[in-house]
């Protein structure tokens, strides 16, 4: 169990351990996964904090994400620039929130942001329609989509403003028993 790795300093690893839900081994493993996406771009030495961003196309081609219909939104939410291009910090953040040890509220916050397509801090009808179409591969008819959106807003909107705020969303998530296990990517 020696500190034989030369990628991070000990303080950096400690900082990562405190700021994510991963252990030292898992952080190193994730770094290797990050590097495997583009070995020529990612240096093996992070002690001097290189500024490396991987474009969204590489992130979206990971086996864990490539079939997920929400992969673009996930990458956009966790990236610094909001376009899906991720640094190692963003990468670790993303998988830390999606790991099984992240608490419910944290996951609910990020799930809310993922489903909020227009980034206005509310899930409105158009966001819901986009979500539904991604969920069902555009197989529902227009009328069915409208009906389902109306029902969802009826059920979850507590403050009656016609759209879901973060509190509405979290209140609904608290009643969902499977949320913790479905909002989980194992890596």
């Amino acid at each position: 169990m020696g500190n034989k790795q030369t990628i991070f300093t000990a303080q950096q690893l400690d900082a990562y351990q405190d700021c994510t839900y991963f252990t030292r081994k898992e952080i190193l493993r994730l770094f290797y996964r990050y590097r495997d996406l583009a070995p020529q771009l990612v240096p093996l030495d992070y002690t001097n904090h290189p500024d490396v961003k991987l474009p969204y196309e590489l992130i979206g081609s990971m086996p864990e994400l490539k079939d997920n219909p929400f992969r673009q939104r996930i990458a956009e939410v966790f990236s610094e620039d909001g376009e899906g291009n991720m640094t190692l910090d963003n990468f670790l953040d993303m998988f830390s929130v999606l790991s099984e040890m992240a608490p419910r509220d944290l996951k609910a916050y990020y799930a809310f942001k993922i489903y909020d397509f227009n980034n206005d801090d509310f899930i409105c009808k158009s966001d819901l329609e986009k979500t539904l179409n991604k969920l069902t591969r555009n197989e529902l008819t227009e009328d069915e989509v409208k009906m389902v959106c109306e029902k969802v807003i009826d059920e979850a909107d507590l403050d009656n403003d016609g759209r879901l705020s973060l509190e509405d969303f979290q209140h609904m998530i608290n009643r969902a028993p499977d949320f913790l296990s479905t909002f989980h990517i194992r890596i």
Partner: protein
Amino acid sequence: MTIEQQRQGLAFSGSGHPTDQESLRFRRVSSRMSTQIYHEPNSSTSLAQEEEQSGSEPTLELRNTVFPMALKKAARQVQQMQVPAQFNGGSWKQKRIKFVRQFKSNVREFLYFFSLWGKTLQKIGGRNLVYASKQPQRLRPRWQTLLSLTGNFGGGVQSYFIFLRFLVILNFVSFLLIAGFVLIPSIVFRSVGIKPESSKADVSSECLKYDPNPQGLVVFYEFFLDLLSGTGFMEYSYLFYGYYNNSVIVTSLVGSHFSYNIPLAYLLTAVFYFAFCLICIIVRMGKAARVAVTTGGSDVRSYSMIVFTGWDYGCLGSKATKLKQRNIYYRLQVDLEEERLKKHAASLTLCNKVTLHSLRVLMFFVAVGLIVATFLAIARATTFSQENSHVPGILGLFYTYLPSIVITLGNFLVPLLCDQIALLEKYPPSATVVVALLRAVVLRLVSLGILLFTLWKQIMCHDSRDKCNLCHYNHEDYQCWETSVGQEMYKLTLFDLLVSIALLVLVEFPRRMVVDHWSCKLTQWVGRQEFVVPSNVLGLVYGQTVVWTGALFCPLLPLINTVKFVILFYCKKITLFYNCRPALRTFRSTSSAIFFLAVLLFGWILALVVMIYSVAVIHPSFACGPFRSFFRMWKIVPESFSTLPEGARDFLFFIGSQAFSIPLFAISCVFMCYFIALASIYGKSVAMLRAQLKLAGQDKQFLVKQIEKMKPLSPQHNEGEQD
């Protein structure tokens, strides 16, 4: 949003090392962060403990915050700079907290390693699919990789296997209980050579005749027949009640006083076995009920749940993704269909409504008629089988298995017919499922009850009174009636297992091979097998009820059932992965867990009724078993009671008397009122918190609107507010 503005305001260089000015801002940010943190309710106790222990400032659980990594690292640096200001105890406490957290996660992993079939259950639930094999540390067996492409089967199927695992453990522990108190002492005493005591002298010798081993010419396959039907060499063995002796050992060797009362041990073990199973079921029901209550029960299939929590982010592979999408589409379709049906039903004319309801009543009677016909068939088959039990050879084997065959056929055919009836009844889909389940449950459990009732009628000779005059039971046909009942239960269990294996080999594998390799319209329409959770779970409940009923008469039945369920687990797992396609219609797993445990409880009550009846009403056999010299089985308890020392006897009398039980009853009423009051208070506080949440949202919107109103008026004041 303030968080966005903060993030923009705090962008710093890629070096990650903040300058002095920026570090000042981070200090202020960290103090504001502490008011904007989302605390996880589940770990709030640990968080509160950390806050109490760390003394002056609450330690921030950085990983629980919603800020990006850069901000978290900066806040951590601020924290590290603040820590030396506290005395050393602070950092020691933080280290201790970290150590405890690490230890807990290690223990959890260690225990998980020992959990029975943990990996299989995870795989069925679909959490463990494999990607590229570049992981040097994890060892993945090849078959896991091969099966990774089959996709997950969902929580409903997983709940079946979890239920099966629970039953396996329950049966195994029950067997240990019985082995420890009844089986091993019997073996020891028999090997030491203690002879059974003979019954009282005032009984005619007719009743004392018991001849389990047949004389005369024995056919060569008799061994196999005996194994299947529990007769012959198997009858007079530890498997059945008849072999156990009524030995009461009282020794007073030098220095030690050893006494063991086998009949008392036998009876009390049976009672404790039932109590133990009841406690296990109720504890499990409590856990499931807690989950159901916190999630509000009936909201599981609501639209918002499907939309926001329906997608499984761990789903890998394009095939599995397509399947999941179709699944969600199907679920939404079902719900929309129910809405349409409701609207349609509301718009029916009176004439239509009357015809629909009269059709439903008619179909109800048809279903009841089918079920009653099955019961009559079972009763007739049992009587026939008992009358012709002495026919030798294969035909005899067929006759002895006739009740099991009829029960299995009935359990297979009647639900099929009821499904066809349900098409005519036109209930909404959720009601159809519930009605079909109820009918299946009634059919399975009551058919077992009918079998036992018929047996009891024969043993107590309701039809021909003269047979029972001599020995209080039908000693001509049943020299040892308890063993006969045990044999029936043994045959039912064995037949159940044989039918499952036969179905697997003869129906499911060929079906899959035909569907895969021969594509024509018929095979496309039939399709691959779907794993139907409700009927499988009812099969498990039926098997367990049979074991409970037979445990008093066949003490090794829990062990046989453990082995049977283990074989069943692997058979069902194989058929799930090789023959079944993932179901389009997923089964709700949370409320169904309570339903299955409730049905199991119902089976337990049925078995309890049988046990109470055998112990309290029917005269035990004179010729065999531990209770051969008693008038009723429970008479052993008062008789042993009289051998207890004076103090214990007085204590037990006091517990049974009114002076003790009435105050106990009053105190339990007080506790019950307390818990009811507590529950209603919690309900009220939940409603109040919900209202508070609404108000908080409205307050926030009002404040945001106010800020936006003030923005065009004074931009400088705005920045001053933020800093």
